[in-house]
């Protein structure tokens, strides 16, 4: 009633009303579109004089999901850090362009002694670090002294790849000495088969001794290497900017003048940024977006060779998975092909072994457990479980390269298991909790995966399935003495053929015991503008951009 009165009191000419409405409109549009004139869009915003500048200066903008932790490669273990450091630092030896074979790097040649205990490296001459320090044998020695003098907390990968630090018993490297200005000798306490592959890992990028002696713990904020690009600026959580190293020791490289790594956490937003031309390359493309990219004439899709495995781990110490028959039944019950088709969008291959085929030592003779629910039921019957059982199935809460959507994969598995009378309840936890519970052996079955560090079979089989790693990365609590002996023998076997035989045998044992249901080796995807040339995605996940160009 009263309101009506008030309203009655407010009496306005329609003219005034119109002008007010206009005012509102103006306000809204000002706020929405900004009052700036001149430059139009971001895409062409580098327009006018700036466009010329960009034409002269080739800047590649690499969009990715997260920021680096540190730019000192030896202190980190995360891929986002290596993506950047791989372009600032060189390693003594390199992986191949798209594989994990070993090629010369800062060391142009090397010789390994027959017994596998001595390695002699001959270094490239005339190379300078970005700060002007000379690269020579002394610099290599100083890097190793720095690493070996650290501890597991400071340099985690050094310890886990070379068995420890300093005088520790497990430490593989006995000494590193300069035998000439450009010659370095490594003495090992015992042969280590993946030694060269370890040296090629991004963590072991050779840093300028002058710089790390001066900066100490702060070296990661101002990294200095010999790589194709020099560090310029790091705006945390936003961008890392690198510029061309004009004195790079490889003739004609790098092609680009500048590389900017930009963090855009949301996958859809990153794709939007690529579509609008704000970034040139986008990492972490969701498989379901691959069709959008292939259908767009301005874009191209890149496939990263797979070096991972996604699996359903069965906790071998928990009933009923302590019975190999039940584990084999699980392997027969799950339709892996359907899962790969549906959730990896066909971009990945079905796994039969715990490691991907690109890894040398892969046993292709293994006959995979075919999808056969009847056989699964039979096996359950033999195990005395014809009525099935109840179990908890852990579904990953986060997407990972090896598992694009844990929740959906879990649902598919749940349905497969229901067909053989197994009642799986899907549970999920926040990621850190998930890993912790799985590591503690609290899960009946859990989805998980692994991306290789150095392209060596040991990095899959020993790390994931050896009894030494129960409580850490052997989440399945799988234990087999015979397998353990083989894996340990393979660690010191330097003869490549003999080593591969050992790994072939190891995969047979694992196949028979069926501690997991291996699901897939996924193919991570990237996308880029059509103008990006010569980009080759590396299986390790960190790409050297020295040969990449922009047309």
């Amino acid at each position, binding site marked *: 009633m009263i309101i009506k009165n008030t309203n009655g009191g407010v009496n306005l000419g329609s003219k005034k*009303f119109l002008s007010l409405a206009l005012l509102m409109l103006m306000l809204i549009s000002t706020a929405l579109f900004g009052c700036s004139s001149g430059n139009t*869009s971001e895409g062409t915003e580098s327009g006018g004089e700036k466009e010329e500048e960009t034409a002269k200066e080739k800047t590649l903008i690499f969009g990715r999901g997260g920021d680096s932790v540190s730019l000192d490669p030896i202190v980190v273990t995360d891929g986002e850090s290596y993506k950047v450091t791989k372009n600032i630092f060189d390693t003594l030896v390199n992986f191949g362009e798209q594989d994990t074979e070993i090629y010369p790097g800062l060391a142009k040649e090397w010789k390994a002694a027959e017994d596998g205990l001595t390695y002699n490296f001959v270094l490239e001459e005339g190379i300078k670090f970005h700060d002007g320090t000379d690269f020579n044998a002394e610099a290599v020695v100083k890097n190793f002294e720095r690493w070996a003098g650290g501890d597991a907390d400071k340099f*985690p990968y050094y*310890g886990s790849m070379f068995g420890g630090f300093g005088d520790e018993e497990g430490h593989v490297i006995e000494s590193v000495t300069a035998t000439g200005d450009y010659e370095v000798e490594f003495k090992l306490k015992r042969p280590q088969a993946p030694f060269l592959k370890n040296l090629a890992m991004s963590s072991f990028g050779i840093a300028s001794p002058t710089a790390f002696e001066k900066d100490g713990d702060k070296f990661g904020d101002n990294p200095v290497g010999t790589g194709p690009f020099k560090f310029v600026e790091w705006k945390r959580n936003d961008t890392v900017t690198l510029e061309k190293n004009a004195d790079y020791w490889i003739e004609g490289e790098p092609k680009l003048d500048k590389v900017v790594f930009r963090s855009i956490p949301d996958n859809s937003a990153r794709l939007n940024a690529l579509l609008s031309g704000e970034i040139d390359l986008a990492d972490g493309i969701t498989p379901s977006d691959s069709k959008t990219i292939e259908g767009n004439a301005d874009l191209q899709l890149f496939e990263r060779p797979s070096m991972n495995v996604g699996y359903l781990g069965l906790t071998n110490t928990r009933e009923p998975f302590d019975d190999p028959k039940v584990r084999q039944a699980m392997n027969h019950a799950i339709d892996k092909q359907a899962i790969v088709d549906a959730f990896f969008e066909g971009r990945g291959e079905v796994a039969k072994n715990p490691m991907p085929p690109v890894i040398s030592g892969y046993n292709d003779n293994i006959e995979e457990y075919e999808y056969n629910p009847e056989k699964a039921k039979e096996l359950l019957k033999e195990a005395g479980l014809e009525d099935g059982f109840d179990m908890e199935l852990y579904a990953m809460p986060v997407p990972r390269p090896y598992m694009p959507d844990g929740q959906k994969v879990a649902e598919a598995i749940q349905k497969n298991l229901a067909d053989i009378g197994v009642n799986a309840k899907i549970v999920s936890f926040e990621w850190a*909790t998930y890993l912790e519970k799985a590591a503690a052996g609290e899960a009946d079955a859990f989805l998980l995966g692994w991306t290789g560090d150095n392209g060596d079979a040991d990095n899959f089989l020993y790390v994931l399935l050896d009894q030494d790693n129960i409580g850490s990365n052997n989440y399945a609590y799988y234990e087999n003495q015979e397998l353990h002996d083989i894996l340990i023998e393979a660690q010191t076997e330097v003869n490549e053929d003999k080593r591969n035989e050992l790994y072939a045998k190891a995969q047979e044992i694992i196949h028979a015991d069926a501690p997991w249901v291996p699901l897939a080796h996924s193919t991570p995807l990237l996308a880029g503008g059509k103008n990006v040339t010569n980009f080759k995605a590396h299986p390790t996940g960190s790409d050297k951009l020295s040969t990449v160009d922009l047309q």
Partner: protein
Amino acid sequence: MLHYAGRRIFQLIPVLLGMTFIVFLIIRAIPGDPAQVILGQQASEEAIKALRTTLGLDNPWYIQYFEYLKGLLTGDLGESLRTRTPVVDEVWPYLAATIELSVFAIVIAVIIGINAGIISAWFQNSWFDYLAMIIALIGVSMPIFWLGLMNQWIFSIELGILPTTGRENVRDPVDVITNFYLIDTLIQGNFAQMSVVFKHLILPGTALATIPMAIIARMTRSSMLEVMRSDYVRTARSKGLKMFWVVYKHALKNAIIPVLTIIGLQMGLLLGGAILTETIFGWPGIGRYIYEAIGFRDYPVIQSGILIVAFIFVMINLIVDMLYGLIDPRIKYE
């Protein structure tokens, strides 16, 4: 007034102390070992053990808490477990990014929200009123994620007039002075860059402003309706004063008090609640700083981040309370 301000600030001490304690306890109630998370899936057991010792995670919680408080008193917010950098040294760029975005958002929300509310009240039950209130209703219930991605699609990809993500054109980065990019570019007199920075603010700013704008519009409308019914407005009207002045000068002054409270609260919420917006728009602000820290169980960062946001929240409320007195001298502080 000064006395009142002093007392209010003094009262903040137990509030902030309580806050540190609650935050501390909650964070430690989350399962998950920070050492494991920091070192990642690939870490060895020894490495994890070593890190736990270095981080002091082996100590009982009350010792950790007192260590933390002791640090706070000396202006030490602790060291990020992830980057090993003192929080004090690394927090400012994130905080500045969020403040810039929030201030921009609140300005939009206030200008549009208050005016929409006033006009709705003025022309109650008109088509504008209905439209504005429907839009406000949609605004409150709109998921920011969806809105943000839709806006990117329309304004960046289809129309190509606004950038999708980030704070600047990374091909032509801003030289950082204060970390408020609008101010930085202004100081440098680089107006081309300033307009670019401004454009980057628009999409995340409007996404962030949507909810407060809607709330402010509704609050203004109902507050205005009440005031417009009062005798003095009728008197002013009968004196023949122009309606515009009646509304914007006389009525607004009285109607604004509850709206101010809402603005204060919303401003505080913006600071803490920018996580989604900052994720979609790749905005390197404090919301994402805290969010990433949660993923890494980076206790000192989570603690300090929440504490800083809470502190600002409390300060804004204090300022709002002070403003009451300036706007309406009848309000006396006891």
